[in-house]
């Protein structure tokens, strides 16, 4: 989707002062952060992450952690209180996403709580929201967004086609790279209609004619599926008809992009901490390897880049929370393109700093490199986002 389309075309975006948002955590947010840190630290241990990622647990995601996130009300942070949520904002959700990214927690936060929920909030009717959001907040409903075609190109219309007879919609086609697609209970499907318009449908994943195939993924901590719809029939009541579908999809993807940036910051933070600790302990040539400037300078560079990445991601999350749509059009691609590149560099440097041990399966650093590479390519690579920025800035 073209994130640039909804932005106002004011020519001075390149120089205009961005709206003021605060980056300081409130006391409540700080408490939330501590609580979430403890929770992920206790639950998303490296052993547990591997168990889930290698298919040795009871599901393709961490059901225990997921249930706890639900119990603590953390799945419903952005869901209105009327629909079983906490009625907080993306600023709070970002705290959860960063910790999840730091631990590589294999839970469907991005798919269900960000992409699916934002699409539903954007285009669902009151009835549709009331029907599904309480389940999402409770963790029992898990949404996955199927919006791509088989090639996965963001600039190409969805691979699913929708045609209508009376009150029945017929859905046919294939959507690839659906995040958590195989384990989701419900799918939010973007489809093209006969007139070329875009519609969103929310359907039970067990609907007749839906088949889902797991994709062999680079990053095992985030499963994806190819979703095929063959002769699927849904009713008009399953079409998200409370708002403009295109705008809702755009809203969901923008939130997804910000979520990824925040998650990337968590991963960079982890990498910096673990490599610094190792550089302090590992002795070669009779001294800690961190005493060699080649190593020390690299870690210092990583720190500087982390700080910039954090600023970009935090800005995007705060702007999204504040509902500053114009600024978000800049902040989201800024954060995603910048954080993705820093994450990839840090994660790869991390392997180098660990030496031979960093190249082993047993060591966790490769999981971060794979997450970095995958999140770089997910929902638009850095070039895509920089092109959007260039357009917005009139360059």
């Amino acid at each position, binding site marked *: 989707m073209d994130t640039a389309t909804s932005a106002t075309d004011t020519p001075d975006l390149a120089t205009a002062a961005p709206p003021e948002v605060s980056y300081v955590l409130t006391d409540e947010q700080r408490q939330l952060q501590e609580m979430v840190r403890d929770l992920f630290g206790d639950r998303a241990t490296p052993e547990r992450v591997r168990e889930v990622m290698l298919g040795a647990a009871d599901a393709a995601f961490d059901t225990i952690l997921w249930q706890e996130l639900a119990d603590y009300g953390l799945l419903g942070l952005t869901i209105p209180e009327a629909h079983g949520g906490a009625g907080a904002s993306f600023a709070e959700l970002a705290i959860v996403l960063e910790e999840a990214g730091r631990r590589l927690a294999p839970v469907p936060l991005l798919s269900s709580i960000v992409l699916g929920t934002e699409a539903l909030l954007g285009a669902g009717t009151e009835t549709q929201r009331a029907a599904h959001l309480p389940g999402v907040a409770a963790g029992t409903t898990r949404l996955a967004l199927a919006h791509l075609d088989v090639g996965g190109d963001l600039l190409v219309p969805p691979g699913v086609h929708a045609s209508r007879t009376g009150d029945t919609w017929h859905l046919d086609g294939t959507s690839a790279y659906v995040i958590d697609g195989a384990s989701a209970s419900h799918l939010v499907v973007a489809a093209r209609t006969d007139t070329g318009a875009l519609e969103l449908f929310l359907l039970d994943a067990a609907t007749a004619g839906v088949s889902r195939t797991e994709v062999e993924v680079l990053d095992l901590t985030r499963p994806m599926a190819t979703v095929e719809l063959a002769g699927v029939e849904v009713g008009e009541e399953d079409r998200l008809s409370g708002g403009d579908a295109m705008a809702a999809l755009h809203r969901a993807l923008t939130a997804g992009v910000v979520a990824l940036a925040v998650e990337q910051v968590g991963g960079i933070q982890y990498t910096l901490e673990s490599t610094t600790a190792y550089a302090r302990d590992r002795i070669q040539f009779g001294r800690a390897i961190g005493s060699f400037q080649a190593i020390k300078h690299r870690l210092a560079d990583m720190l500087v880049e982390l700080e910039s990445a954090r600023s970009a991601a935090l800005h995007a999350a705060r702007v999204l929370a504040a509902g500053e749509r114009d600024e978000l059009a800049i902040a989201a691609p800024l954060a995603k393109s910048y954080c993705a590149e820093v994450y990839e560099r840090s994660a790869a440097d991390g392997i180098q700093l660990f030496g031979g041990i960093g190249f082993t399966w*047993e060591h966790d650093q490769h999981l971060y490199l794979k997450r970095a590479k995958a999140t770089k390519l997910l929902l638009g690579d850095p070039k895509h986002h920089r092109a959007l920025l260039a357009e917005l800035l009139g360059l």
Partner: protein
Amino acid sequence: MGVDERALIEERIAALFAAHPPAETDERTFWGAQFDHGLAWVQFPDGFGGSGVSPRWQAVVDQRINDAGGSTRNRINNVLGIGMGAGTIMAHGTDEHRARYLRPMFTMEEIWCQLFSEPGAGSDLAALSTSAVREDDHWIVNGQKVWTTLGHLAKWGLLVTRTDPDQPKHAGLTYFIVDMEAEGVDVRPLYQITGEAEFNEVYFTDVAIPDDLRVGDVGQGWTVAMTTLMNERVAIGGNVQPRGAGAIGEAVDIWRERHGAHGDAVTRDQLLQLWTAAEAMRLTSVRAKEAATSGTPGPEGSTAKLQWAELNKRITSFSVDLLGPEGLTYPGGYSFSRPDGSADVDGAPHKRFLRARANSIEGGTSEIMKNILGERVLGLPGEPRVDKDKPWREVPRS
């Protein structure tokens, strides 16, 4: 000299091909005949698989074999032997060693591995702790090695041990050939980020090595090990490939298939930046080969190793980016197998991307290569050393 050498090599190639047409001869027989015709490592003397000429002619020989439908995959599948062990045995072994080990190494009847690195000694190889204690006509070895590529297939290992812990670290080392099937050698797989186990950890418990498997004098292990490492760096970085082969060729193919006429100018320029760097590097190795005289490669080998490692990492990463969303996949999945070669040379771009992360670690890290270039080639002063003259026993280790 060059003309005579060319004539000699041409003559030997012709004789080899006449007796054993490369496309029709089974690999092992062919490699044996190649050895007997002095074309296994041309810079070695007659009788040891060589012709006593400049090593630059090896590329010519290998190219001709490949063009004629023969195979040179032994250089890859037995790289620790052919690329590193042979040069070491030639330089420091006895005639008995040369006669016994070189030919079956080249024919791949016997696979070799390199037992240098330990958990506590990687970049700082000379700090290693695996001990060898003399008892009459043999040595008793105890300790642990790690990252041992192809250890699970190897018949022989190149082993560096500590024989005198009271000497400064470089002085107390001794080098051996060890039988990997000997009593007390335990090889366990170590899985890599690709999901495959090319390398292993190897435990030695009271392993007896006959003294006649010692390479070089007692206490001379560091000198012998340096020969192995110099050969390794050339084996890793110094291979001359045809223009557009290898990782850059793969990137170009992906560009053609998926971007081609619709590709954007920025990405194309990035591809071309990598292409020009790869080609300039390739020409540097052609030049180095031409200039090389026989004997052990010097520290300049680190130039090629460093450049190749860093560039290969960049190119393979770029290739995955070129795949776009398909870069999110890992075709074939993580297999948890123990391959008989290195994934570096085959596999999907995704696997090559992961495998390439090791290029700047294996055979000496890029940081160490830079130290070598700075200190040994440019002659810059070294880092202050806290460990150099102390007895090994007293040096801190992790």
